[in-house]
Protein backbone atom coordinates (compact mmCIF):
# COMPACT_ATOMS: atom_id res chain seq x y z
CA UNK A 1 0.00 0.00 0.00
CA UNK A 2 1.05 3.58 -0.39
CA UNK A 3 0.23 7.01 0.98
CA UNK A 4 -1.98 9.56 -0.73
CA UNK A 5 -3.11 13.00 0.39
CA UNK A 6 -6.49 13.17 2.06
CA UNK A 7 -8.22 16.53 2.52
CA UNK A 8 -10.67 17.03 5.37
CA UNK A 9 -13.78 18.58 3.82
CA UNK A 10 -14.90 20.01 7.19
CA UNK A 11 -11.76 22.11 7.61
CA UNK A 12 -11.24 22.93 3.92
CA UNK A 13 -14.82 24.06 3.25
CA UNK A 14 -14.66 26.45 6.20
CA UNK A 15 -11.55 28.26 4.88
CA UNK A 16 -11.30 27.51 1.15
CA UNK A 17 -7.88 29.11 0.61
CA UNK A 18 -7.19 26.99 -2.52
CA UNK A 19 -3.43 27.18 -1.87
CA UNK A 20 -2.90 23.42 -2.27
CA UNK A 21 -4.40 23.49 -5.78
CA UNK A 22 -1.68 25.98 -6.77
CA UNK A 23 1.27 24.14 -5.23
CA UNK A 24 0.70 20.51 -6.28
CA UNK A 25 3.31 19.47 -8.87
CA UNK A 26 0.86 17.10 -10.54
CA UNK A 27 -1.66 18.46 -13.02
CA UNK A 28 -5.37 18.09 -12.19
CA UNK A 29 -4.64 16.16 -9.01
CA UNK A 30 -5.82 18.51 -6.26
CA UNK A 31 -9.13 19.68 -7.68
CA UNK A 32 -11.72 22.10 -6.40
CA UNK A 33 -15.45 21.46 -6.16
CA UNK A 34 -18.08 24.05 -5.24
CA UNK A 35 -20.62 21.36 -4.39
CA UNK A 36 -18.46 19.22 -2.12
CA UNK A 37 -18.63 21.49 0.94
CA UNK A 38 -21.82 23.35 0.22
CA UNK A 39 -23.91 20.17 0.04
CA UNK A 40 -22.90 19.54 3.67
CA UNK A 41 -23.91 23.04 4.73
CA UNK A 42 -20.49 24.68 4.73
CA UNK A 43 -19.87 28.17 3.46
CA UNK A 44 -17.48 27.34 0.61
CA UNK A 45 -16.58 24.47 -1.67
CA UNK A 46 -13.72 22.11 -0.89
CA UNK A 47 -10.52 20.85 -2.49
CA UNK A 48 -10.18 17.11 -3.02
CA UNK A 49 -7.54 14.73 -4.34
CA UNK A 50 -7.76 12.57 -7.45
CA UNK A 51 -6.00 9.67 -5.71
CA UNK A 52 -4.99 7.81 -8.87
CA UNK A 53 -2.68 10.71 -9.76
CA UNK A 54 -1.30 11.50 -6.29
CA UNK A 55 2.38 10.49 -5.99
CA UNK A 56 2.40 11.00 -2.22
CA UNK A 57 5.05 13.73 -1.97
CA UNK A 58 3.19 15.53 0.87
CA UNK A 59 4.14 18.94 -0.49
CA UNK A 60 0.48 19.97 -0.04
CA UNK A 61 0.64 18.94 3.62
CA UNK A 62 3.48 21.41 4.21
CA UNK A 63 1.60 24.13 2.30
CA UNK A 64 -1.62 23.52 4.27
CA UNK A 65 0.12 23.30 7.66
CA UNK A 66 2.77 26.00 7.32
CA UNK A 67 1.57 28.52 4.74
CA UNK A 68 -2.21 28.32 5.19
CA UNK A 69 -2.10 27.08 8.83
CA UNK A 70 -5.26 25.05 8.29
CA UNK A 71 -3.91 21.52 8.94
CA UNK A 72 -6.58 20.05 6.69
CA UNK A 73 -4.44 17.56 4.72
CA UNK A 74 -3.16 14.27 6.11
CA UNK A 75 -1.30 11.49 4.33
CA UNK A 76 -3.39 8.30 4.43
CA UNK A 77 -2.85 4.75 3.20
CA UNK A 78 -4.97 4.36 0.11
CA UNK A 79 -6.76 1.26 1.42
CA UNK A 80 -7.80 3.21 4.53
CA UNK A 81 -9.83 5.65 2.46
CA UNK A 82 -13.44 4.54 2.29
CA UNK A 83 -14.31 6.91 -0.54
CA UNK A 84 -12.13 8.96 -2.85
CA UNK A 85 -12.17 10.73 -6.21
CA UNK A 86 -10.48 9.16 -9.24
CA UNK A 87 -9.81 10.94 -12.53
CA UNK A 88 -12.37 8.96 -14.54
CA UNK A 89 -15.16 10.01 -12.17
CA UNK A 90 -14.44 13.75 -12.31
CA UNK A 91 -16.62 15.97 -14.47
CA UNK A 92 -15.69 19.53 -15.46
CA UNK A 93 -18.33 22.22 -15.26
CA UNK A 94 -18.32 25.93 -16.03
CA UNK A 95 -16.34 27.14 -12.98
CA UNK A 96 -15.91 24.05 -10.88
CA UNK A 97 -15.60 20.28 -10.98
CA UNK A 98 -17.92 17.55 -9.77
CA UNK A 99 -16.48 14.30 -8.44
CA UNK A 100 -18.40 11.10 -7.86
CA UNK A 101 -16.64 9.42 -4.95
CA UNK A 102 -15.96 5.70 -5.01
CA UNK A 103 -13.83 3.09 -3.29
CA UNK A 104 -10.31 3.73 -4.67
CA UNK A 105 -9.30 0.07 -4.25
CA UNK A 106 -11.83 -1.14 -6.79
CA UNK A 107 -10.45 -0.46 -10.25
CA UNK A 108 -12.91 -0.75 -13.05
CA UNK A 109 -11.29 -1.94 -16.28
CA UNK A 110 -11.72 -0.06 -19.53
Amino acid at each position, binding site marked *: MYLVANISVEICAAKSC*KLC*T*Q*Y*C*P*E*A*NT*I*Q*YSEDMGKDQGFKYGS*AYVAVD*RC*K*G*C*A*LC*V*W*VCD*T*MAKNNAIKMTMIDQLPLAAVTDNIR*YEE*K*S*TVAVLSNPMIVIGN
Partner: protein
Amino acid sequence: MSLDYVKFSGGFEKFMPKEYRDMVEHGPFGKKISVSQMGSFKEILEEHPMCAGCAMTLFIRLAIIAFPNPEDTITVGTAGCGRLAISQAAIPFVYGNYGDQNGVASGLSRGLRLRFGDKPKDVVVMAGDGGTADIGFQQVLHSWFRKERFTTIMLDNEVYGNTGGQESGMTNRGAVLKMAPLGKKFEKMDMLQMARVAGCAYVASVVPNNPRRVESVIKKAVLIAREVGSTYIQAYTSCNIEYAIPTDKVMEDAKTVENDRYQFTEYVSDEAKQYLTERYGYKDYLPKPAASAAIPNKA
Protein backbone atom coordinates in the same frame (compact mmCIF):
# COMPACT_ATOMS: atom_id res chain seq x y z
CA MET B 1 -3.75 24.45 -33.66
CA SER B 2 -5.50 27.73 -33.14
CA LEU B 3 -9.20 28.22 -32.69
CA ASP B 4 -9.06 31.01 -35.26
CA TYR B 5 -7.80 28.68 -37.97
CA VAL B 6 -9.52 25.45 -37.05
CA LYS B 7 -13.27 25.77 -37.07
CA PHE B 8 -15.44 22.71 -36.64
CA SER B 9 -18.15 22.14 -39.17
CA GLY B 10 -21.35 21.23 -37.41
CA GLY B 11 -21.42 17.58 -36.42
CA PHE B 12 -17.67 17.03 -36.87
CA GLU B 13 -16.55 17.98 -33.35
CA LYS B 14 -16.48 14.37 -32.23
CA PHE B 15 -13.82 13.52 -34.83
CA MET B 16 -11.30 15.97 -33.37
CA PRO B 17 -8.65 14.47 -31.06
CA LYS B 18 -9.89 13.99 -27.50
CA GLU B 19 -7.24 16.24 -25.94
CA TYR B 20 -8.18 19.09 -28.29
CA ARG B 21 -11.90 18.78 -27.54
CA ASP B 22 -11.10 18.66 -23.80
CA MET B 23 -9.03 21.84 -24.08
CA VAL B 24 -11.79 23.71 -25.90
CA GLU B 25 -14.67 22.47 -23.74
CA HIS B 26 -13.10 22.29 -20.27
CA GLY B 27 -9.63 23.77 -20.68
CA PRO B 28 -7.98 27.11 -21.35
CA PHE B 29 -8.21 27.23 -25.18
CA GLY B 30 -10.01 30.39 -26.24
CA LYS B 31 -10.49 31.60 -22.64
CA LYS B 32 -8.57 33.68 -20.13
CA ILE B 33 -7.55 31.72 -17.06
CA SER B 34 -5.31 32.41 -14.08
CA VAL B 35 -3.60 30.44 -11.32
CA SER B 36 -6.40 31.33 -8.89
CA GLN B 37 -8.74 29.10 -10.94
CA MET B 38 -6.42 26.08 -10.71
CA GLY B 39 -8.20 22.87 -9.84
CA SER B 40 -11.41 23.82 -11.60
CA PHE B 41 -10.49 23.42 -15.28
CA LYS B 42 -8.78 20.78 -17.40
CA GLU B 43 -5.09 21.63 -17.58
CA ILE B 44 -2.92 21.47 -20.68
CA LEU B 45 -0.33 19.46 -18.76
CA GLU B 46 -1.28 15.81 -18.29
CA GLU B 47 0.06 12.96 -16.17
CA HIS B 48 3.85 12.79 -16.43
CA PRO B 49 6.71 10.58 -15.21
CA MET B 50 8.55 13.21 -13.12
CA CYS B 51 9.58 12.35 -9.54
CA ALA B 52 7.17 12.92 -6.66
CA GLY B 53 7.40 16.43 -5.22
CA CYS B 54 9.49 17.85 -8.06
CA ALA B 55 9.60 21.65 -7.94
CA MET B 56 10.49 21.74 -11.63
CA THR B 57 7.15 20.12 -12.47
CA LEU B 58 5.34 22.67 -10.34
CA PHE B 59 7.08 25.46 -12.24
CA ILE B 60 6.27 23.86 -15.62
CA ARG B 61 2.65 23.46 -14.56
CA LEU B 62 2.40 27.12 -13.55
CA ALA B 63 4.25 28.27 -16.67
CA ILE B 64 1.93 26.42 -19.04
CA ILE B 65 -1.11 27.86 -17.26
CA ALA B 66 0.41 31.35 -17.58
CA PHE B 67 0.88 31.26 -21.37
CA PRO B 68 -1.21 34.15 -22.73
CA ASN B 69 -2.41 32.18 -25.79
CA PRO B 70 -1.75 28.50 -25.12
CA GLU B 71 -3.47 27.40 -28.34
CA ASP B 72 -0.95 29.49 -30.31
CA THR B 73 2.12 28.39 -28.37
CA ILE B 74 4.82 25.88 -29.27
CA THR B 75 7.29 24.71 -26.63
CA VAL B 76 10.85 23.68 -27.43
CA GLY B 77 13.06 21.65 -25.13
CA THR B 78 16.14 19.48 -25.02
CA ALA B 79 17.53 16.55 -23.08
CA GLY B 80 16.90 16.79 -19.35
CA CYS B 81 14.19 16.16 -16.82
CA GLY B 82 11.94 19.01 -17.94
CA ARG B 83 11.05 17.59 -21.33
CA LEU B 84 9.51 14.51 -19.64
CA ALA B 85 6.71 16.75 -18.37
CA ILE B 86 6.62 19.42 -21.12
CA SER B 87 6.08 16.74 -23.76
CA GLN B 88 3.00 15.46 -21.86
CA ALA B 89 0.99 18.54 -22.70
CA ALA B 90 -1.78 19.23 -25.21
CA ILE B 91 0.29 21.86 -27.06
CA PRO B 92 3.01 21.02 -29.60
CA PHE B 93 6.47 20.26 -28.18
CA VAL B 94 9.60 20.26 -30.35
CA TYR B 95 12.56 18.28 -29.04
CA GLY B 96 15.83 19.94 -29.99
CA ASN B 97 18.88 17.69 -30.00
CA TYR B 98 21.46 18.20 -27.26
CA GLY B 99 21.84 21.91 -26.79
CA ASP B 100 20.41 23.21 -30.07
CA GLN B 101 17.00 24.17 -28.66
CA ASN B 102 17.57 27.91 -29.15
CA GLY B 103 18.71 27.35 -32.73
CA VAL B 104 15.59 25.27 -33.43
CA ALA B 105 13.42 27.90 -31.77
CA SER B 106 15.02 30.69 -33.86
CA GLY B 107 14.09 28.93 -37.08
CA LEU B 108 10.67 28.02 -35.79
CA SER B 109 9.78 31.52 -34.69
CA ARG B 110 11.01 33.02 -38.00
CA GLY B 111 9.08 30.42 -39.98
CA LEU B 112 5.90 31.05 -38.02
CA ARG B 113 6.25 34.78 -38.66
CA LEU B 114 6.61 34.17 -42.40
CA ARG B 115 3.61 31.89 -42.47
CA PHE B 116 1.26 33.73 -40.10
CA GLY B 117 2.43 37.34 -40.37
CA ASP B 118 1.28 39.55 -37.56
CA LYS B 119 -0.86 36.89 -35.94
CA PRO B 120 1.03 36.07 -32.72
CA LYS B 121 2.50 32.59 -32.51
CA ASP B 122 4.56 32.18 -29.36
CA VAL B 123 7.65 30.01 -29.14
CA VAL B 124 8.84 29.18 -25.63
CA VAL B 125 12.08 27.33 -24.93
CA MET B 126 12.12 25.46 -21.63
CA ALA B 127 15.40 23.69 -20.94
CA GLY B 128 17.43 22.78 -17.90
CA ASP B 129 20.51 24.54 -16.59
CA GLY B 130 22.77 22.07 -18.41
CA GLY B 131 20.93 22.50 -21.71
CA THR B 132 20.95 26.30 -21.43
CA ALA B 133 24.19 27.24 -19.72
CA ASP B 134 26.53 24.36 -20.65
CA ILE B 135 25.66 22.30 -23.72
CA GLY B 136 23.48 24.86 -25.47
CA PHE B 137 25.37 27.92 -24.23
CA GLN B 138 26.68 28.99 -27.64
CA GLN B 139 23.30 28.82 -29.37
CA VAL B 140 21.53 30.46 -26.44
CA LEU B 141 23.87 33.46 -26.43
CA HIS B 142 23.80 33.80 -30.21
CA SER B 143 20.02 33.73 -30.30
CA TRP B 144 20.07 36.59 -27.79
CA PHE B 145 22.67 38.57 -29.75
CA ARG B 146 20.51 38.16 -32.87
CA LYS B 147 17.51 39.38 -30.81
CA GLU B 148 15.41 36.41 -31.86
CA ARG B 149 11.86 36.96 -30.70
CA PHE B 150 11.08 34.07 -28.40
CA THR B 151 11.22 33.30 -24.69
CA THR B 152 13.98 31.23 -23.09
CA ILE B 153 13.19 29.71 -19.69
CA MET B 154 15.94 28.04 -17.70
CA LEU B 155 14.74 25.38 -15.27
CA ASP B 156 17.70 25.74 -12.93
CA ASN B 157 18.04 22.77 -10.59
CA GLU B 158 21.78 23.43 -10.24
CA VAL B 159 22.76 19.88 -11.23
CA TYR B 160 22.48 17.36 -14.07
CA GLY B 161 19.59 15.60 -12.35
CA ASN B 162 18.63 13.22 -15.14
CA THR B 163 22.04 11.55 -15.44
CA GLY B 164 22.93 11.00 -11.81
CA GLY B 165 24.20 14.26 -10.36
CA GLN B 166 27.11 15.80 -12.28
CA GLU B 167 27.98 19.45 -11.62
CA SER B 168 26.79 22.00 -14.14
CA GLY B 169 27.84 25.58 -14.80
CA MET B 170 24.94 26.68 -12.61
CA THR B 171 25.95 24.55 -9.60
CA ASN B 172 27.10 26.60 -6.63
CA ARG B 173 30.75 26.70 -5.68
CA GLY B 174 31.62 23.99 -3.18
CA ALA B 175 28.53 21.86 -3.81
CA VAL B 176 29.30 18.16 -3.34
CA LEU B 177 27.29 15.89 -5.62
CA LYS B 178 27.23 12.16 -6.38
CA MET B 179 29.29 12.63 -9.52
CA ALA B 180 31.26 15.63 -8.21
CA PRO B 181 32.62 14.25 -4.94
CA LEU B 182 35.36 16.85 -4.48
CA GLY B 183 32.93 19.75 -4.68
CA LYS B 184 32.60 22.30 -7.43
CA LYS B 185 35.70 24.47 -7.76
CA PHE B 186 34.37 27.61 -9.45
CA GLU B 187 31.44 30.00 -9.12
CA LYS B 188 27.90 29.65 -10.41
CA MET B 189 27.54 31.29 -13.84
CA ASP B 190 25.79 34.64 -13.78
CA MET B 191 23.37 34.03 -16.65
CA LEU B 192 21.08 36.89 -15.62
CA GLN B 193 23.85 39.44 -16.15
CA MET B 194 24.88 37.70 -19.35
CA ALA B 195 21.34 37.94 -20.71
CA ARG B 196 21.30 41.67 -20.07
CA VAL B 197 24.68 42.16 -21.73
CA ALA B 198 23.52 40.10 -24.72
CA GLY B 199 20.56 42.44 -25.16
CA CYS B 200 17.52 40.59 -23.83
CA ALA B 201 14.50 42.89 -23.50
CA TYR B 202 13.25 41.15 -20.37
CA VAL B 203 15.24 39.23 -17.76
CA ALA B 204 13.77 37.81 -14.56
CA SER B 205 14.66 35.29 -11.87
CA VAL B 206 11.89 33.53 -9.95
CA VAL B 207 11.27 30.74 -7.47
CA PRO B 208 8.06 28.71 -7.82
CA ASN B 209 6.87 29.34 -4.26
CA ASN B 210 4.90 32.34 -5.46
CA PRO B 211 2.49 31.11 -8.19
CA ARG B 212 1.09 34.57 -8.98
CA ARG B 213 4.54 36.00 -9.52
CA VAL B 214 5.49 33.11 -11.80
CA GLU B 215 2.32 33.75 -13.78
CA SER B 216 2.96 37.47 -14.18
CA VAL B 217 6.62 36.96 -15.13
CA ILE B 218 5.84 34.35 -17.80
CA LYS B 219 3.01 36.44 -19.25
CA LYS B 220 5.23 39.51 -19.57
CA ALA B 221 8.10 37.52 -21.08
CA VAL B 222 5.93 35.86 -23.74
CA LEU B 223 4.18 39.12 -24.67
CA ILE B 224 7.46 41.06 -24.95
CA ALA B 225 8.97 38.28 -27.09
CA ARG B 226 6.18 38.73 -29.63
CA GLU B 227 7.59 42.00 -30.92
CA VAL B 228 10.40 43.52 -28.89
CA GLY B 229 13.13 40.89 -28.62
CA SER B 230 14.54 37.94 -26.69
CA THR B 231 13.34 37.37 -23.16
CA TYR B 232 14.94 35.21 -20.47
CA ILE B 233 13.55 33.75 -17.26
CA GLN B 234 15.70 31.85 -14.80
CA ALA B 235 13.72 29.74 -12.36
CA TYR B 236 15.08 27.91 -9.33
CA THR B 237 13.49 24.46 -9.50
CA SER B 238 15.26 22.30 -6.91
CA CYS B 239 16.14 18.66 -7.57
CA ASN B 240 14.93 16.88 -4.45
CA ILE B 241 16.68 13.64 -5.48
CA GLU B 242 20.24 14.90 -6.09
CA TYR B 243 20.15 17.47 -3.28
CA ALA B 244 18.36 15.03 -0.91
CA ILE B 245 15.50 17.38 0.01
CA PRO B 246 12.57 15.57 1.68
CA THR B 247 9.63 15.96 -0.72
CA ASP B 248 7.44 17.70 1.84
CA LYS B 249 10.20 20.27 2.50
CA VAL B 250 10.63 21.29 -1.16
CA MET B 251 8.81 24.60 -0.73
CA GLU B 252 10.67 25.32 2.51
CA ASP B 253 13.93 24.83 0.60
CA ALA B 254 12.66 27.11 -2.18
CA LYS B 255 11.96 29.78 0.40
CA THR B 256 15.40 29.43 1.98
CA VAL B 257 17.12 29.60 -1.39
CA GLU B 258 15.01 32.58 -2.43
CA ASN B 259 16.14 34.48 0.65
CA ASP B 260 19.73 33.29 0.25
CA ARG B 261 20.66 33.69 -3.42
CA TYR B 262 17.61 33.65 -5.66
CA GLN B 263 15.83 36.91 -4.89
CA PHE B 264 13.19 37.99 -7.37
CA THR B 265 14.83 40.28 -9.89
CA GLU B 266 13.30 41.74 -12.99
CA TYR B 267 14.85 43.82 -15.75
CA VAL B 268 12.56 45.34 -18.38
CA SER B 269 14.08 47.40 -21.19
CA ASP B 270 12.59 50.83 -21.87
CA GLU B 271 11.26 49.68 -25.22
CA ALA B 272 9.58 46.67 -23.59
CA LYS B 273 8.05 48.89 -20.89
CA GLN B 274 6.56 51.14 -23.53
CA TYR B 275 5.30 48.15 -25.51
CA LEU B 276 3.60 46.54 -22.48
CA THR B 277 1.97 49.83 -21.47
CA GLU B 278 0.70 50.83 -24.89
CA ARG B 279 -0.22 47.43 -26.26
CA TYR B 280 -1.41 45.46 -23.26
CA GLY B 281 -2.40 48.17 -20.79
CA TYR B 282 0.20 47.43 -18.08
CA LYS B 283 0.03 50.27 -15.56
CA ASP B 284 3.22 49.39 -13.63
CA TYR B 285 5.48 51.22 -16.06
CA LEU B 286 3.62 54.49 -16.37
CA PRO B 287 5.70 57.45 -15.17
CA LYS B 288 5.17 57.92 -11.46
CA PRO B 289 3.62 61.24 -10.35
CA ALA B 290 6.11 63.48 -8.60
CA ALA B 291 6.38 62.86 -4.85
CA SER B 292 5.16 66.33 -3.92
CA ALA B 293 2.05 65.95 -6.05
CA ALA B 294 1.25 62.50 -4.60
CA ILE B 295 1.09 63.72 -0.98
CA PRO B 296 -1.90 65.99 -0.46
CA ASN B 297 -1.05 69.26 1.15
CA LYS B 298 -2.49 69.24 4.67
CA ALA B 299 -1.74 72.84 5.43
